[in-house]
């Protein structure tokens, strides 16, 4: 069965600093991987996704993520954080075939605080 681990519950960075949020997944085949962001009081919004091909994927708002099969990781990065990036970030995995493709399994989220 699929699962996702986000080891960092809460991360604080200074505005303008770089950011890396960690995500490790468990899935027997090639996974579909996603990063979502949830701003306070809002629903989740997709930042980026990986299906296949280039292991470095670009997303919205200047975010990128790198798929590393050997490490079962899909870490999210941003070179320079803005105060508006403060939010909850969720990594998710979906199965690439069969019934697994029908839903997403989310990690427990990482809360990002940005200090001026």
């Amino acid at each position: 069965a699929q699962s996702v681990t986000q080891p960092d519950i809460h991360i604080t960075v200074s505005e303008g600093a770089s950011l890396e949020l960690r995500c490790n997944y468990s899935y027997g085949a090639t996974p579909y991987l996603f990063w979502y962001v949830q701003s306070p009081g809002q629903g989740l919004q997709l930042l980026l996704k990986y299906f296949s091909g280039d292991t470095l994927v670009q997303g919205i708002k200047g975010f990128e993520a790198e798929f590393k099969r050997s490490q079962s990781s899909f870490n999210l990065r941003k070179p320079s954080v803005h105060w508006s990036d403060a939010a909850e970030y969720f990594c998710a995995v979906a199965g690439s075939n069969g019934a697994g493709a029908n839903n997403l399994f989310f990690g427990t989220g990482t809360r990002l605080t940005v200090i001026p």
Partner: protein
Amino acid sequence: DTAVSQTPKYLVTQMGNDKSIKCEQNLGHDTMYWYKQDSKKFLKIMFSYNNKELIINETVPNRFSPKSPDKAHLNLHINSLELGDSAVYFCASSARLAGGRLKTGELFFGEGSRLTVL
């Protein structure tokens, strides 16, 4: 225009009551979902409907009953509410390719309905 809209946004009720949360999407998607987010922000799927047909039904108590009158609507009815039902419930929708794969992998979420059971 709100893509996925849920009502009500907040719901406070007593244990034992029955309540419903409504969801509508105007994206033309054929698949809709209900997710539950608990107090620790853990997000877990409850149900998924594709063209009004139930395709995912996780281990959710049968007090929870989804209803999809058409592919643009997916409502959630909860009977005999319990304290543990307090959570934020998110509706979402997505498009699909034939064969069941998520078309883009993108779920569009509503803003959530915060249910508090006293």
